[in-house]
C-alpha cells in the first residue's frame, strides 16, 4: 500500500507577464515506499511546486516524475493532496466530504458507510459526521481533509503545510495523530513544511531547499527510532539535529 516517488532532473518555470520565471531548478531525488519524507524551506522556495508536480496538477518544464516507476502525467487517487488550500467542500457535511472522495474513485456504494465511519474515527471527528465545515474548528477541518484523503487508500499522501496556522499546542497533538495514522495506514508521505521542528520530529529524511529558484541544499537522514514520543524534542541529540538543519536554512 505504498509507492516510491522519484524526480529526475525536474525543473519548472512559470510565464509571468511574458517572462519565464524559474521556480524550480534542476531537482532529482527519490522517496522510498512507506517513507516519511519532508521538504523543508522558506516560503517561495518552490516546495508547493514540487507537491503540485508530484500530484500531477502541473507538468514539469524539463525532466520527469515517476510514481511506482510510471511517469506522472495527471492527478490520481493514488497520490492525494492534503492541504489547507484544497480544503473541504463547504456545501457538504463531513461525511459527505469523505463520500465524495469514495464516489470519485468509484468505490462501491455499499462500502461507503463503513469506510466513512472508519476514517472519521481515525482522525477523531466521528461525532461531527453531520457537521458542515463552517461548524468545525480549524483543527477539525484539517482532520476532515485528512480523513477524506485517507478514505481512498492512497499509496502516497502529499501533505502541503497541513498544520499551518494552528496554534503550537494543537500542532503538537496533531503531529502525534499524523504519526499514528501513518503507522496504521503505511502510506508514503511527502510533507512540505517551513517548520524545522515539525520536519525533524516526523520525518525519516528531510530535504532542505534554497530559494530563487528552488534547488536542493541538502538531504539529511533523521535516525531517531520509532515510535517517537513528544519528549524527543527535548533531547540533546534532537537539538543537535536542529542546529545542523538550521545551519542549512540560513
Amino acid at each position, binding site marked *: 500500500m505504498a509507492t516510491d516517488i522519484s524526480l529526475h532532473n525536474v525543473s519548472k518555470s512559470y510565464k509571468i507577464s511574458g517572462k519565464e520565471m524559474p521556480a524550480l531548478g534542476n531537482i532529482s531525488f527519490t522517496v522510498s515506499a512507506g517513507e516519511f519524507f519532508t521538504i523543508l524551506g522558506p516560503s517561495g522556495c518552490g516546495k508547493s511546486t514540487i507537491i503540485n508536480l508530484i500530484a500531477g496538477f502541473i507538468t514539469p518544464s524539463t525532466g520527469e516524475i515517476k510514481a511506482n516507476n510510471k511517469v506522472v502525467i495527471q*492527478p*490520481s487517487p493514488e497520490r492525494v*493532496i492534503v492541504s489547507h488550500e484544497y480544503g473541504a*467542500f463547504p*456545501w457538504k457535511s463531513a461525511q459527505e466530504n469523505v463520500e465524495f472522495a469514495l*464516489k*470519485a474513485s468509484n468505490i462501491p456504494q455499499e462500502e461507503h458507510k463503513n469506510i466513512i465511519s472508519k476514517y472519521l474515527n481515525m482522525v477523531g471527528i466521528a461525532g461531527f459526521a453531520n457537521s*458542515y*465545515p*463552517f461548524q468545525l474548528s480549524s483543527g477539525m477541518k484539517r482532520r476532515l481533509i485528512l480523513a477524506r484523503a485517507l478514505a481512498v487508500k492512497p499509496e502516497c499522501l502529499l501533505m502541503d503545510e497541513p498544520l499551518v496556522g494552528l496554534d503550537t499546542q494543537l500542532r503538537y497533538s496533531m503531529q502525534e495523530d499524523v504519526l499514528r495514522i501513518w503507522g496504521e495506514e503505511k502510506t508514503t508521505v511527502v510533507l512540505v513544511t517551513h517548520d524545522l521542528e515539525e520536519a525533524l520530529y516526523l520525518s525519516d529524511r528531510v530535504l532542505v531547499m534554497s530559494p530563487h529558484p528552488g534547488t536542493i541544499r541538502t538531504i539529511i537522514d533523521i535516525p531517531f527510532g520509532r515510535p517517537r514520543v513528544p519528549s524527543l524534542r527535548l533531547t540533546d541529540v534532537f537539538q543537535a539535529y536542529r542546529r545542523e538543519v538550521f545551519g542549512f536554512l540560513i
Partner: protein
Amino acid sequence: MQHNNSNSNRLSLLLLRCGVFFILLFLWQIAANFKIINVNFLPPPSSLVKEFYYLAKSGYLSSNLLGSLYRVTLGFTIAVCLGVILGTLLGYFSKIGNVIVPVLDILRSIPPIAWIPLAILWFGLGNSSSIFIITLGAFFPIFVNTFSGVRSVSRFHLDTGRCFGANQALIISDIILPSAMPQLLTGIRIGIGTAWTSVIASEMVGTRNGLGYAIQLNRIMLDTDAVIVNMILIGVIGWLMNTIILHIEKRISFWYLQQNV
C-alpha cells in the same frame, strides 16, 4: 435574557410598523372624506375594500390572477431551465462561452418590454407572445448569475475533484453546481422579479385577461378603484414570490451565508 430581549424588540418593531401603516391609511381616508383629495383620481381605502370584495365575488379577480400566474409560471420555468443549463455549459466550457457571451450581453441590454412589438409580430396576440416576453425577461438574470457562479468555482475545489479521479458528471453535480448555487439562486430571485414585471407589461398590450390587462382595461373604463386594487394585488404577489425565493435561498445557501458572517 438576550434572547427575550431581541424577541420583544422584534415585537415592538412589528407593532410600530403596523401602527404607521394604519395611521397612513387613516389619514388617506380622512383626506378623502373631507374632499382634500379628488376621489376620482385617488379613491379612499374604504372604497378600495368594497371594490376588492366586488372583484373577488364576481370572479374577475381570480380569472385575471390565474391568467397571470399561469403565464408567469410557464415562462419562468422555461427561463430557469434554459438559464441554468446554458449558464452552466457556457461557464464550464469556457472557449465556447467566450464566443457566445458577448452576443448575449448585447441582447441582454434590450429591455424585455422593447421585445413586445416583435413578439406580437412573431406569435400574434395572446399567451404565446406574453410567455415569450416573460421567458426572455427572466432568462438573462438567471443565465448571467449561473454563468458567473460557474466561472468563479474555486480552482482548488476543481483540482480536489481531479485528484480523487472524479469524472465530469460528478465534477458538475458535486462541485460546480453546489458551488455556484448561491449565485444561481440570486439569479432566480432577480429572474422571478423580471418575470413578474414582464407578464404585467405584456398583458397590457397583448392578452385578453390577466392583472396587466385588468389595469389597462379599467383605466379605459375610468374605474380607478379597480385599477388600484389590481395594482395592489400585483404588488402583493410580486412581494410574495420574492419572499418565498428568499426563504428557499436561506435554506439552500446556508453554508455560503454562514461563511460570510
